[in-house]
């Protein structure tokens, strides 16, 4: 069973690489029961959106999808 600390590491890494099937499963089970980590995940997504939306960045950025 994943602990919150491990879950947050995986959630951060999930922003950078595709998590393995085992990691995804563990994470999903954990998130189903943990509101703190669900909020953490939403916050990670928001950080990405904020960086992409930073005012003044070249227009092209907005069309470029997330990697």
């Amino acid at each position, binding site marked *: 069973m994943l602990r919150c*600390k*491990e879950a947050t590491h995986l959630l*951060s890494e999930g922003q*950078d690489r595709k998590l393995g099937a085992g990691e995804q499963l563990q994470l999903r089970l954990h998130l189903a029961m943990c509101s*703190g*980590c669900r909020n*953490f995940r939403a*916050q*990670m997504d928001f950080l990405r959106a904020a960086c992409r939306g930073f005012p003044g960045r*070249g227009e092209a950025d907005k069309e470029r999808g997330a990697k």
Partner: protein
Amino acid sequence: MSEASVIDDEFVAAIRRDMLKFAQLQLRDAALAEDAVQEALTAALCGARQFAGRAALKTWVFSILRHKIVDLIRQQCRTTNISALGDDEAGLDEAFDTLFKQNAHWRPEARPGDWGNPEEALRESRFWDVFEICLNHLPENTARVFMMREFLEFDTAEVCSELAISVSNCNVILYRARNGLRRCLETSWFAPGEKPC
């Protein structure tokens, strides 16, 4: 105004401001940022290239600026050890550790909060001021790795090879940066009931 293809002084001044902010956040050196922006602007405006409007010009200068920033970061990391753990970094890591109980689950009072519809904040200019302050508040090397990943949009493998750090180190640094930013925003912007003024 018709098709916004007028490249006037005012437009250049506005682009310049945006570019400076973008460069300064990443380089953390006003003079270096100023030079990079100047060079990028000169290169773009003196080139023989024709622009179909302002958006195209902006995209073009920013792509030149990106390259300049990457070059400067490469030079900087020849003289600094990105993966060295400074006091700032160690302090942040310790602070995160205190968010968890002994069993590595959240302390109830430290559990990440529900930010509601945070996207609404992206439309508020005051939010961007806070976001910038939080970015600037990250330790320098931590911020550099994060900005390369999120602002210059390198993938992690590229960041690692550019900065000569291991993947696991990169992951640790990005985790630190994201946690630092998230906590900064949580206390400075998303804290419930603290936005009356």
